[in-house]
Structures are given as structure tokens and as C-alpha cells.
């Protein structure tokens, strides 16, 4: 199956805001609509609606019909893309730790 690559520029911008990251976290369950999400924050409904719209454009959330309501649901695929970057970062640190271990082993041998 061919999947279009996520729009990283949009994704970066959308995730750069703490409220939007929190919305993404809450919307993983996909049980709340915009009004319910807005209840968690001290900002206006319109402001939350704007945040959700930005997330929607970035492909991080979608609005779905659930019975008679519309709920906001996180697109786990987009979130996994972010995670993929963290995985690569982890690889970088594993390499660093390996080199540190080698370095320590070397100085131990020199001490003998």
C-alpha cells in the first residue's frame, strides 16, 4: 500500500505548541468532540477550535462521526512518524554509549 509521506513542515509546526500536543494526547482515545476538549483548557472555545484546525491540517487529528457526534481522533500514523525520528535519535545515542564504553575499556588496559 502506498502511503503519502506526512507533511513534515506542517507536522513540526503543529507539534511545536504545548496545548496542541496535549490535544493530540487526549484525542488518542477519540472520545471527545471539540467542545469537550475545550473544557480542559482555560482558553475560549474558538481558540481550541483553531488549535484543532491546525492539527487537522497537519494530519495529526481527524474529525470523525461517532453516532450523532463528531469526535476528534489522533492519527497515530503521524505520531508514529514523530516517533520514528526519536528512534533514529536513540540509535545515535546507542552509538555514543558504545564508543564511551570502548574508551573506558582502553584506559583500563593502559592502567594495567
Amino acid at each position, binding site marked *: 500500500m502506498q*502511503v503519502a509521506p506526512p507533511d513534515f513542515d506542517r507536522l513540526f509546526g503543529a*507539534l511545536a505548541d504545548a496545548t496542541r500536543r496535549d490535544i493530540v494526547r487526549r484525542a488518542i482515545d477519540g472520545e471527545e468532540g471539540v467542545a469537550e476538549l475545550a473544557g480542559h483548557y482555560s482558553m475560549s472555545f474558538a481558540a481550541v477550535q483553531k488549535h484543532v484546525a491546525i492539527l487537522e491540517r497537519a494530519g495529526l487529528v481527524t474529525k470523525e462521526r461517532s453516532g450523532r457526534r463528531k469526535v476528534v481522533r489522533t492519527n497515530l500514523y503521524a505520531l508514529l512518524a514523530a516517533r520514528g525520528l526519536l528512534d533514529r535519535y536513540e540509535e545515535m545515542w546507542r*552509538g555514543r554509549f558504545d564508543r564511551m564504553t570502548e574508551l573506558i575499556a582502553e584506559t583500563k588496559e593502559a592502567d594495567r
Partner: protein
Amino acid sequence: MTVTAVRKDPQNLTMTVTAEFDASPARVWQLWADPRQLERWWGPPTYPATFTEHDLTPGGYAAYHMTGPEGDQPKGWWQIVEADEPHHLSFRDGFRNDDGTKNPDMPENIFDVTIETIDSGSRMTIESRFPTLEALEQLLAMGMEEGLTQAVGQIDAILASDTVAAR
């Protein structure tokens, strides 16, 4: 494998890695405090690092560059926030322009390093915080990534093609 735990939080853009070493905290501290040792592990073999300034005291500054296979030299800086030998180090890590000045347009990464004494030697915990996902992407695109070939799966393949396209 020395890495004992990795905790990733994609929403808050932090990653914490823990590793254990068969050496005292004083010895492990030297991996950071001695620039010649630091140079041997900070960059991957394909992008070795050279530290031209290195003042590991609170408020201190460090400057480095990495040399890539094509002769490209991405430059970085550290601003030391806290340094409590041999147990704690926190610093900001950013990019420098070709003329050596800090590049404020490029993202910073914040590191918090803790070195504890354990029965078998030392445990080092490193927390990295990224201001944005873009910061992480730029860091990886700078040629600091390694082991990419080990990455598997559809998502990583898509990420890899996206990274190439972005260059």
C-alpha cells in the same frame, strides 16, 4: 549492551537514555570533561567532532565542529547551565554559522546528564529535550544519525525518503 533503559515521549519531545559503566563516576565524568575523550565519542565515525573551545563550568561555553565524509563541517556550540563534577551536567546545544557565531535560527537541544554511583560502577542518565519536532529533524539531517540501516519498517522507509528529499 550498556544501555539499560530508553524512554521516549513523542508528544513532549523528550528522550531519556540510561547506561551503566564499569567505572567510577569520576572516570565517566572525564568522558565529558576531557575534550580529547569527548571528541572520540560525540560524533559518529563518519562525522568525527573537534572541540575548539571547552569550558565545562556553569556559564561556560564550548565550540565544536564535525567533519563529514564530503569535507562538510557542521558547527555546534554548548552553553553550560550547571556543572557539578562528577555527578551532574546540564547544557544547551545549538548550531553555529560558518563564521563561528551562534545561529539563532537553528533549534537548540537541552541536555541534562546525571552520573550516579552504583555497585557495578556508574549509571549515567541523559535527558534530551527538543523545542520542536523540527529541531529533532534538523539534528538528524545534520549527518549525526547513524545506524539508520538498522531502522526497519514502513514508517522509517518513508522517513528516510523524506529526509533525502529535504536535503
